[in-house]
């Protein structure tokens, strides 16, 4: 664990990479709807909304926070037991670290960490959330942007017991369309396998996200997120 912390500290000290036509620093606001089907695609596991506010520095770094509220009609797992009809509220701190830029291609590493409160009629659960993402963002002309990446997500249940609830490897793909330099609508699909509760979790995660990003002030919404 000490080694991990040292690695993260060293990582955060890496100087920023340049970006083609670097946008000025600004606040970025995002709002999105989220939908997760059940593993068998025969129902809704989660549906809700998330909003985020970040500050994007001139070098491309981003720091911010995300909050998310979800209704969980089906396929909820607490303590490894399946249950239904609940809800969750999550908050995460987020850091985006630019790795490199080559023309329209931008490489970024995104780290998010936070906590979630999950409640059903029968019980409640507290979880820690950690996510690492390697993202490639491509500017396709003036208005279009495409994104692809790999996401490693770890959800650790802290109560009622301590157990890994989800350890997922997801591929991410999506596209954005800029209505203007300050406003961009986007759609994303994240999908992949997940191990949790010694194999008792849903085993897969699929999430569709449809949202809008707004750059405040002189900022540009057409940046990695």
């Amino acid at each position, binding site marked *: 664990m000490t080694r991990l912390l040292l690695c993260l500290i060293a990582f955060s000290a890496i100087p920023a990479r340049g970006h083609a036509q670097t946008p000025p620093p600004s606040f970025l606001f995002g709002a999105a709807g989220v939908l997760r089907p059940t593993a*068998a695609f025969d129902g809704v596991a989660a549906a809700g909304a998330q909003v985020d506010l970040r500050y994007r520095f001139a070098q491309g770094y981003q720091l911010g926070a995300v909050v998310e509220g979800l209704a969980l009609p089906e396929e909820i797992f607490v303590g490894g037991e399946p249950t239904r009809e609940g809800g969750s509220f999550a908050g995460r701190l987020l850091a985006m670290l630019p790795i490199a830029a080559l023309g329209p*291609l931008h490489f970024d590493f995104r780290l998010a960490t936070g906590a979630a409160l999950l409640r059903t009629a029968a019980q409640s659960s507290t979880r820690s959330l950690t996510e690492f993402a390697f993202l490639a963002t491509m500017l396709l002309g003036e208005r279009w942007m495409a994104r692809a990446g790999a996401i*490693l997500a770890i959800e650790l249940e802290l109560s009622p017991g301590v157990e890994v609830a989800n350890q997922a490897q997801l591929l991410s793909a999506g596209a954005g369309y800029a209505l203007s330099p300050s406003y961009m609508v986007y759609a994303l699909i994240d999908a992949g396998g997940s191990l949790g509760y010694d194999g008792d979790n849903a085993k897969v995660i699929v999430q569709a996200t449809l949202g809008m990003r707004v750059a405040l002030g002189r900022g540009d919404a057409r940046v990695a997120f």
Partner: protein
Amino acid sequence: MKDSFLRFGLALIACAFLPLAPAAADEGPRPTRVGAFLDLEWRAMGLAEHLSHGPAFAAGVSLLSDHLRIGLSGFGRPGPWNPHSFDVTLPEGQAYKGQERLSLRSDGGGIGLHLATFWRLGQSPLALSVFANALYGGFGFYLQGEDRQTPDGRRVSDWENELFGGKDSSIGLMLEGGVRLHWLVEGAAWLRPYVALLYSAVPGFDTVVRDSYAGVSAALGVEFHYGQEP
């Protein structure tokens, strides 16, 4: 076991991107001897004598003008997306919900080190990559459908552990090796779609269902690359 898997994965993730490329200039390509890559692919897996599929990735740094690559690699074989079932007969005198023969599904995954070489084939728009992955992972088998509702309300994994004596999965070192054929897209040097062929195995794999989960896989993927052309 899972805790060490988690710690191993976290340490790798944190360290994988430490030796990054020098800063890129604001405009246009600036070839550097150290670069970065992100490979995303979907695999068709011919493992354990059946066909399955799942996502995989590799990400890291490219060195020596992109001839050597070091990074992190992972893959998944999600059970719910692969309906192939495996029949297993319980030991004599044992039954689960009145059944002596059970139909199981399988899932698996792994994460670990990625090592590769990358060579352009003459002046053609093609490049060949030879790679090896040393992962921590494996595969398991699990009760499916109505059988996941246990007769006494205990967790399914408890029942699986009891029924199969803990041999419902086999996790440990997993080795993969293969080749990729990349297409170097003209005018978009950072984009390199590819096809891949690889062999993978979990040494010492031992479960009540299979004693091997090795085999050949094919993949279709896309690479995003920053750095010098090979």
